[in-house]
């Protein structure tokens, strides 16, 4: 045992073990690592082996393959940045205003409704970011009715989202000017987002995997479903993708998280490339 109390000296991970592990991770999630990132993997693998009390790589790998105690979720968590903050992965927001909305509104009359869904919305950073971004970057923001819905399975997160109070970390990507215009300081510290914005977003509870939950959500033009599907097992991912398909109108778009790909989830969507991002589209029509 070393000073930290971890049995790290007993953990022997051979290059073949790492290869086996990397191939499993790549096949399952699409995440791949170059030789240069080898240390990154070693560290996390050791951490997970220790956390699960695995005495050997083989023991850990069996556990991982069986997804015992949601180990896959813990593992992926250790490889991804999990915090939510305003303007996270903003290239997709840029894609929305630079490319997607042009296509979306080409099918709508002026004054028509654009429906955007953030699911899961967690504590609201994403739906509020969408609203903020639109107001700041979309010249036609006043020409259409924009409906933004934020949904999550966690009712406590939804409550926090409705309150709209955020710490400095959540706002770290926002300019002081933006914060000044859209937030105000509140009594216990933290910044609360403008009341008008809080009232303009509908927050609801929904479970992506539950077709009944998802059934009332229809005709969305754009869905942000970022950094959640990667954690689901195969069957649940498939089910969620099918549900999301039904929630989009034909031709509607869906954006996944930066480590996620429909190649690991579902064949239902078309890969759509734009200057700022690769997103996915529900086909306009069925062929065949």
């Amino acid at each position, binding site marked *: 045992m070393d000073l930290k109390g971890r049995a790290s000296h007993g953990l022997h991970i051979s290059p073949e073990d790492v290869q086996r592990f990397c191939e499993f991770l790549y096949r399952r999630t699409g995440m791949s690592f170059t030789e240069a990132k080898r240390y990154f993997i070693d560290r996390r693998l050791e951490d997970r082996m220790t956390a699960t009390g695995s005495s050997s790589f083989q023991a850990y790998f069996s556990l991982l393959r069986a997804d015992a105690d949601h180990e896959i979720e813990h593992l992926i968590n250790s490889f991804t940045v999990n915090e939510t903050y305003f303007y996270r992965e903003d290239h997709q927001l840029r894609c929305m205003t630079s490319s997607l909305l042009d296509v979306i509104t080409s099918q709508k009359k002026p004054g028509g409704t654009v429906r955007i869904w953030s699911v899961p919305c967690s504590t609201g950073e994403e739906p509020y970011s969408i609203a903020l971004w639109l107001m700041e970057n979309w010249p036609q923001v006043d020409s259409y009715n924009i409906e933004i819905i934020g949904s999550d399975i966690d009712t406590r997160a939804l409550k926090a989202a409705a309150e709209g109070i955020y710490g400095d970390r959540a706002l770290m990507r926002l300019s002081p000017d933006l914060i000044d215009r859209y937030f105000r300081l509140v009594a216990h510290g933290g910044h609360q987002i403008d009341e008008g914005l809080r009232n303009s977003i509908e927050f609801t509870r929904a479970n992506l995997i539950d*077709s009944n939950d998802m059934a009332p959500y229809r005709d969305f033009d754009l869905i942000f479903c970022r950094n959640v599907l990667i954690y689901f097992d195969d069957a649940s991912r498939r089910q969620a993708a099918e549900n999301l398909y039904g929630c989009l109108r034909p031709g509607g778009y869906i954006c996944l998280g930066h480590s996620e790909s429909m190649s690991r989830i579902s064949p239902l969507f078309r890969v759509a490339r734009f200057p700022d991002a690769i997103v996915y589209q529900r086909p306009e029509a069925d062929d065949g």
Partner: protein
Amino acid sequence: MPLVRGSKSPAGGDPAPHRAALDSPDAESRWTAARALSGDADAVPLLAATLGREPVPRVREAIMTALMRVGNAASVEAILPYLRSQDAGLRAAAIEALQALPEAVAPFMAALLSDSDSDVRLLATELARNMKASEATRLLCDVIAHEQHPNVCAAAIDVLTEVGTPQALPALEKCAARFAGTPFLPFAISVAIARISSAEG
């Protein structure tokens, strides 16, 4: 049209209109119907029959999902014939649905791995990937001991590289001897042996 929650039997709501809608000329109606019948064990024969004549890929996917959610022997039997399809897309869809059901598929594995059609044998090796390591190793070692078709062996070795236990080493060595001097297989076997051997140490 309300969607019925997937379960062993439809939770409230009459399945009859959904069953009728499986024959609708409209793809969207058929898709909704398949999703409504998801997990409905009684609907398996009907879903299986519809699958065979469904031309629209996303409806086929929904029917496969519906069958997968039932996950019993009958639903596995309904999906298995599509491993023989001439349509690569249908074969891919079938394998994917079956991969989610390792327990339900297990009783069929021996027969699949000795099917007269080498394509079926090849696809079936993939189904061992989600099984327990010891069982997968046993099944796949049987394959590589007797299989003449190099591509089926290659597929089996690919899965063994991930899940194989040290029990697989003798069978891999013998297979290497059998296919010595042929393209790709000696390489594949050497990688499998290296990965599995490292697990022993």
